[in-house]
């Protein structure tokens, strides 16, 4: 399985290159690969049907419990077949839909990448392996939705989908980690074989809620449903593949997978039922409001996903059985309908239900596919959708909790499905119209073959459910229900209540279809409702984040040098005060007042000189005077060095000071003149900060003097300087001998500074100099 995935990654990145090499024949390898995968998974069928579970593992980061572990059981195989088989058809369909696009190679890259990631999700045994593939599907979904990157709508929708599902991914990671902490197992196999995760465990609630959040965002459950209709900005193959048949079902997959571990509790059932049914009703109602066929399909998809979530919430064997059948049936007919709508869009240039009339005679094969899928969607007798719908009604009617709520959801969505199915298979193709919509160009073979095949498959599975679909579904069923109850699928159950309900649904649904134009006429109330829904909240939050980030950046990174400095200095002061207050003893100056008597007169004169110079510096407006006064301060410092036994330092200081004054004077006429710039109010703030900093430094110095440290280095250098390095000036010896490399570093710094100065002086961008 690892090699299948690796091959997928490799092929996907080869796609753009192959596009250049093969041109239009690119479709051949791209279709053959999923077909090969499909065939590979088919070869696994006998083993899995016999009840075996295929496990494969490769060490990745074993110390963290993160390994490439795969598990192929009934549920995984069902999804794997769906993903790869559907993948092959979508790849073919893409050729017809986007065949002329110069970016076809890139599109195949994303699509194959997605398919591989999705296979990874459904095959992963390791929890973190699943997480990685899960995130990868979110990212590829982002890339695919934003494929028409020149359209703003596509970019916004792509962002939205990424943020919503990405947030869910984060929740998934949290949930998986908690699950791992609580149970100690890293794989689904271990989870399934181990003890049940008890609801009384303190981590049960947070872990479950986080995992549910992940599933709800991925499967577009209320209130996170809004990204899915917006994701219809993607090219139709993407909508058909990701946003109806596979990716949005990843959430359902995970729910089904975790059901045996987390399910059976009140929280699990109530949350799933409430959210699922709310989503079902919302999707069904909104689906009737739109005339854009893709939007209609998107909302029915949401409704169907809601039903699946409700079914996992009902949590009875019957419901889980219904879930699997409905899931398969939905993938088949919804994928078909999406492809049909895409083909119509491609041929006529519109997908607005009000514009499309009487297409049947022109697009016979498409009409056939749409009719097949529509009948399945409506749940008409010989189709697989009928089997699904029967089971759905039966399961909801026997729900242990919230029976009427669940059944109401199923019934309303059933009505909406019938209406939408009538619209798609009858309304736009066969409804009598004076003028039929002109068909610009007939759809090519690759546009109508995939939907037709899928539609036929829906009929075939419906005709003999027990022989074709049942064995695999049964294995999947045993995985998610963790019972060995047998699963019987039959087309005909006799004239039961359920069948009567089905009949009622169909007749009311058809009635609804004839009312559709009227429903679409008065969308204003609903529109307003929708405009103020979660979608708006998302946009508000999104904008708020951007604004907040900008305001924060402006606050912290204002671009004012002094604000940065004030922040740094104040922070430094706070740290210093904290440390001094916590660790250091208070200083006692009274002990040292007598030291004042030892101050010699010339020292005092120097001290006063520096003070006077500083005072003068604060008040002067002349640049030349400032420079001279600065020199005075520097020379005074040099004198202090001499007085306290550091002639070398003093010599350096004198030299440097002289050089600085020279540079200043040389450049003086090119430096800005003094102007009065600061505001009075700010001045006080700066004075405060400066004085605080200065006094802290004084305090530190006084403290250090009180607790003098004795250094052994002094003795070492005093002894070793002549005997080892043959120099009498100890400071010089240290610089050129003991710490010679430091001095080399210092020289390097000077050289770099000199280079910088040279460059700055020579740089002349205005006069066309080189930058």
């Amino acid at each position, binding site marked *: 399985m690892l090699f299948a995935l690796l091959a997928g990654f490799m092929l996907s990145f080869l796609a753009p290159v192959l596009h250049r090499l093969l041109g239009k024949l690119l479709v051949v390898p791209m279709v053959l690969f999923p077909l090969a995968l499909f065939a590979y998974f088919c070869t696994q069928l006998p083993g899995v049907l016999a009840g075996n579970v295929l496990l494969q593992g490769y060490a990745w980061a074993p110390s963290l419990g993160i390994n490439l572990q795969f598990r192929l059981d009934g549920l995984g195989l069902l999804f794997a077949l769906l993903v790869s088989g559907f993948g092959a058809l979508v790849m073919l369909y893409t050729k017809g839909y986007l065949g002329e696009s110069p970016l076809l190679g890139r599109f195949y890259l994303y699509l194959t990448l997605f398919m591989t990631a999705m296979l990874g999700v459904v095959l992963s045994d390791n929890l973190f392996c699943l997480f990685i593939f899960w995130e990868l599907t979110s990212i590829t979904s982002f890339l695919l939705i934003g494929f028409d990157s020149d359209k703003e709508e596509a970019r916004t929708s792509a962002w939205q989908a990424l943020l919503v599902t990405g947030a869910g991914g984060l929740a998934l990671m949290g949930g998986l980690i908690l699950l791992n902490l609580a149970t100690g197992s890293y794989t689904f196999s271990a989870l399934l074989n181990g003890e049940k995760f008890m609801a009384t465990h303190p981590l049960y609630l947070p872990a479950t809620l986080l995992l549910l959040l992940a599933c709800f965002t991925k499967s577009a459950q209320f209130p996170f449903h809004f990204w899915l209709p917006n994701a219809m900005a993607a090219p139709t193959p993407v909508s058909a593949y990701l946003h109806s048949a596979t990716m949005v079902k990843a959430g359902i997959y995970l729910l089904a997978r975790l059901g045996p571990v987390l399910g059976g509790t009140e929280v699990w059932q109530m949350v799933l039922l409430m959210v699922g049914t709310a989503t079902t009703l919302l999707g069904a109602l909104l689906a009737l409001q739109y005339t854009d066929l893709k939007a209609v399909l998107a909302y029915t998809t949401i409704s169907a996903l809601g039903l699946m979530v409700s079914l996992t919430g009902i949590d009875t064997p019957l419901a889980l059985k219904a879930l699997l059948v409905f899931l398969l049936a939905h993938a088949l007919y919804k994928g078909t309908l999406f492809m049909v709508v895409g083909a119509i869009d491609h041929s006529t240039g519109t997908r607005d239900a009000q514009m499309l009339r009487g297409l049947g005679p022109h697009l016979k094969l498409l009409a056939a596919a749409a009719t097949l899928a529509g009948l399945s969607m409506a749940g008409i007798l010989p189709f697989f959708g009928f089997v699904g719908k029967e089971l759905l009604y039966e399961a909801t009617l026997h729900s242990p909790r919230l029976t009427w709520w669940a059944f109401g959801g199923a019934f309303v969505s059933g009505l909406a499905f019938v209406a939408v199915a009538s619209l798609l298979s009858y309304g736009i193709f066969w409804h009598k119209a004076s003028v039929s919509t002109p068909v610009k160009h007939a759809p090519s073979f690759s546009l109508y073959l995939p939907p037709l095949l899928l539609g036929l498959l829906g009929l075939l599975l419906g005709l003999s459910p027990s022989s074709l679909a049942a064995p695999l579904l049964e294995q999947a069923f045993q995985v998610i229900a963790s019972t060995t109850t047998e699963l019987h699928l039959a087309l005909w159950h006799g004239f039961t209540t359920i069948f009567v309900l089905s009949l009622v649904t169909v007749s009311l649904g058809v009635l609804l279809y004839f009312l559709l134009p009227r429903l679409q006429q008065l969308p204003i109330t609903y529109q307003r409702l929708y405009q103020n829904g979660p979608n708006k909240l998302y946009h508000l939050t999104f904008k708020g984040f951007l604004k907040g980030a900008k305001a924060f950046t402006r606050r912290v990174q204002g671009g004012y040098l002094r604000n940065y400095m004030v922040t740094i200095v104040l922070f430094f002061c706070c740290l210093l005060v904290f440390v001094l207050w916590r660790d250091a003893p208070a200083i006692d100056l009274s002990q040292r007042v007598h030291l004042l008597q030892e101050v010699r007169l010339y020292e005092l004169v120097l001290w006063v000189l520096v003070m006077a110079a500083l005072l003068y510096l604060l008040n002067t407006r002349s640049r030349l005077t400032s420079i001279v006064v600065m020199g005075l301060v520097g020379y005074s410092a040099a004198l202090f060095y001499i007085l306290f036994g*550091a002639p070398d330092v003093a010599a350096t200081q004198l030299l440097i000071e002289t050089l600085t004054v020279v540079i200043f004077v040389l450049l003086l006429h090119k430096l800005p003149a003094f102007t009065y710039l600061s505001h009075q109010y700010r001045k006080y703030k700066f004075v405060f900060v400066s004085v605080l900093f200065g006094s802290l430094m004084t305090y530190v*110095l006084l403290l250090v003097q009180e607790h003098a440290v004795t250094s052994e280095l002094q003795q070492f250098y005093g002894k070793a300087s002549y005997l080892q390095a043959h120099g009498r000036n100890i400071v010089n010896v*240290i610089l050129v001998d003991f710490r010679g490399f430091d001095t080399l570093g210092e020289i390097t*710094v000077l050289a770099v500074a000199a280079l910088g100065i040279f460059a700055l002086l020579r740089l002349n*961008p205005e006069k066309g100099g080189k930058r």
Partner: protein
Amino acid sequence: MEILLPFMIGILFAVGLYFMLHRHLFKLILGLILFGLATNLFLFVVGGITRSSIAIIPETEEVATEPYADPVPQALLLTAIVIGFGIQAFAIVLVRRVYQTLKSNNLDELNSTDKT
């Protein structure tokens, strides 16, 4: 004198920082120089100061005779002063360049990377 020097250094720090917080480019350089000076003196005092006993071994001796000034802070200081000079010189030229190019002496106007 040990008791007076810390106050001088503190005042030097304060004035240097105050100048650096100004908006004016020229004062920024002055502040930078003063701050550097204060830091050097700070290091000097922290190392412990003794009056007029230089760290040089007399011709007649092979090891230094007590008392002598601690040579380690002095060696550090020498390095610091020279590097400080490098920074000062660079800052002066940079300010000149900025002033020449942007015709502004106000730091507050230099808060974006693009010329306006």
